[in-house]
């Protein structure tokens, strides 16, 4: 087959594979909150056109070598239509973080839920709400941010999400506003009769000097099979500070896709921790762009993958301006037949002098059948920079295990203690304490169930 023919079949596949993801959408406008907003309509149409013309990534495509899409496409996902309204706050008690004091927002299958959210009293200059509502009441307030930060996105899933823009979370902090209590965002999914894909579009925008802490969680009720395809755009103004924890704890049958697109103005600080625990197939893209000097981006991650699980993190950090710092510290624990991918690219343009970039990916492999593909890349075109990267893939050290066992500790507990110790660097940096305890507990539970040979 020649290249052109190959591409044609690719295109046919894409339109076909994702037909259901676009179902119910289209130019008529009344299905979605964006009806009548010209700039957004145009973005959505262009995105839909990209879906129709871009080929489906294959394992030969850059960025998809280790992350096959067949399993996902085979499910025949169809876009979520009806909102789920039957849930009451009692139904979600089991998924809450004990003792976490936070403003809580709940979205169910991609739709903002007023009934389940408990925002409490928000500080002055802090607004939290539904994208759908905002597009009706004040679309101008998201113009210039929504779809602008992500642009065309990294791949077809971003286009799919943009084509389907309908609802999601919007968090806006005015210049100088400070949210002291964390804002917890629960993306809750429940199974439907057929495999559904929810495509929430989320927006965090912090004005100059604003500060917030956001805890985002992707959670399921039961062992539902569904897909989440979310895009999150984050705009940090000058001197803004965002502490962001993302916990992916979807059901073991779920598919998860996140594209996080971050734009940082001068002197802003972003500290994000990604905890990947759930799903059968999970792909996260973290994309950072600096729009001003002296900005700092700190990306941490911890992922655990066991049987029937693939967890994939792709990072794309671009230093186009001088004097910014970026740091990626990702750790993984693989057991059973678990698989993970770490692909981190840090690009330092010729003008980005005094860049400080550091990337590390360390993995603990507990079984001979587990696998991680790790690919840290630094592309540096400036000459006065401080950049480093390191990656390790190792097993539990026998001396460490023996030391614990020689004190009477059972081998299985000893292994778990060492794994938690390994993960500690990431978990211990989480705050507040209730969140830290919760994540440690979740990680511990998974290790307890893991077959540790």
């Amino acid at each position, binding site marked *: 087959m020649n290249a052109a023919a190959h591409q044609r079949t690719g295109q046919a596949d894409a339109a076909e594979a994702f037909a259901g993801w676009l179902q119910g959408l289209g130019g008529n406008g009344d299905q979605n909150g964006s009806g009548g907003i010209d700039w957004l309509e145009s973005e959505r149409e262009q995105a839909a056109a990209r879906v129709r013309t871009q080929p489906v990534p294959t394992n030969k495509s850059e960025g998809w070598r280790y992350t096959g899409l067949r399993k996902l496409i085979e499910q025949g996902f169809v876009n979520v239509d009806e909102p789920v309204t039957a849930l009451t706050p009692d139904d979600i008690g089991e998924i809450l973080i004990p003792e976490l004091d936070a403003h809580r927002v709940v979205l169910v299958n991609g739709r903002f839920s007023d009934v389940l959210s408990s925002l409490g009293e928000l500080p002055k200059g802090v607004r939290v709400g539904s994208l759908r509502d905002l597009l009706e009441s004040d679309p101008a307030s998201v113009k210039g941010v929504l779809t602008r930060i992500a642009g065309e996105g990294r791949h077809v899933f971003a286009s799919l999400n943009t084509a389907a823009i309908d609802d999601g979370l919007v968090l806006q902090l005015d210049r100088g506003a400070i949210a002291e209590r964390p804002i917890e965002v629960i993306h809750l999914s429940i199974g439907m009769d057929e495999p559904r894909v929810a495509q929430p579009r989320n927006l965090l925008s912090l004005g100059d000097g604003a500060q917030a802490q956001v805890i985002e969680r992707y959670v399921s009720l039961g062992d539902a099979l569904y897909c989440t395809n979310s895009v999150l755009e984050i705009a940090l103004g000058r001197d803004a500070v965002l502490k962001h924890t993302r916990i992916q704890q979807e059901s073991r049958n779920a598919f998860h896709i996140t594209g996080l697109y971050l734009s940082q103005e001068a002197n802003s600080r972003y500290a994000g921790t990604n905890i990947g625990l759930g799903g059968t197939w999970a792909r996260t893209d973290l994309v950072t762009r600096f729009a001003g000097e002296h900005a700092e981006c700190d990306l941490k991650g911890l992922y655990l993958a066991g049987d029937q699980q693939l967890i994939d993190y792709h990072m794309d950090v671009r230093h186009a301006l001088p004097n910014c710092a970026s740091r990626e510290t990702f750790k993984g624990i693989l057991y059973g037949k678990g698989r993970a991918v770490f692909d981190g690219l840090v690009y330092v343009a010729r003008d980005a002098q005094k860049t400080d970039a550091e990337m590390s990916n360390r993995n603990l492999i507990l079984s001979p059948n587990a696998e991680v593909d790790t690919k840290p890349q630094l592309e540096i075109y400036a000459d006065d920079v401080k950049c480093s990267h390191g990656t390790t893939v190792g097993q539990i050290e*026998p*001396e*460490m295990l*023996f*030391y*614990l*066992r*020689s*004190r*009477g*500790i*059972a*081998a299985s*507990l*000893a292994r778990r*203690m*060492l794994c*938690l*110790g*390994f*993960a*500690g*660097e990431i978990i211990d940096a989480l705050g507040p304490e209730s969140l830290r305890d919760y994540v440690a507990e979740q990680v511990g539970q998974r290790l307890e169930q893991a077959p540790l040979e």
Partner: protein
Amino acid sequence: MLSVKGLKASVGDEPILKGLDLEVKPGEVHAIMGPNGSGKSTFAHVLSGREGYEVTGGSAELDGEDLFELEPEERARLGLFLAFQYPVELPGVNNMYFLKAALNAIRKSRGEEELDAVSFMRLMKEKLKILHLDDSLLKRPVNFGFSGGEKKRNEIFQMALLEPKLAILDETDSGLDIDALRIVADGVNALRSPERSMIVVTHYQRLLDYIQPDHVHVLAKGRIIRSGGKELALELEEKGYGWIVEGEAA
């Protein structure tokens, strides 16, 4: 208490222990001395069940139980304790959590209840004091970033907490200054009892000035080639090992 007969062990194809006999009775303290590389640590490791050694002959029983039938944690629960020559650093593993897990595992095997948080803390504080260790040690990862002396004291602290039947101290004195040595020795002496036995591996008489042994053995080339009372250690201090090792070869 401990009965080792004709013990042979190798690493890979290399025989290290070549027929070692040792009888330790309840309450006795035995010192094992011997040149570098003679197999002292190997002996301690083989008894406590470390991987990487193959037992090719002989037997070792603790209170009539065949040690080689047991996993390392089962040996510990039976009352065997090894103070490591090189304590292992466990980054990220909280010392307090570790001690609690160890103590509870051992208490459980003795049919005792788990300690509640308050009694556990009280016990820890009491034992820390014996070793002149600071509370802050509990919050740190096990042995991680500890000084050499802190590591050794932490070993004896664990021994004080776990109250073993038979403790093997592998060069616990090495690298300790004179004050730390006295603290460790006092800690060890406080644990001496008619039921508890100890094997003290050392190169130096100075430790044995504090911890007076009932028997002294010389281990060379994988065998015990000379045994005696505590005066043997003094003789070794004065003359070195050469005279015995050579005498043996002749």
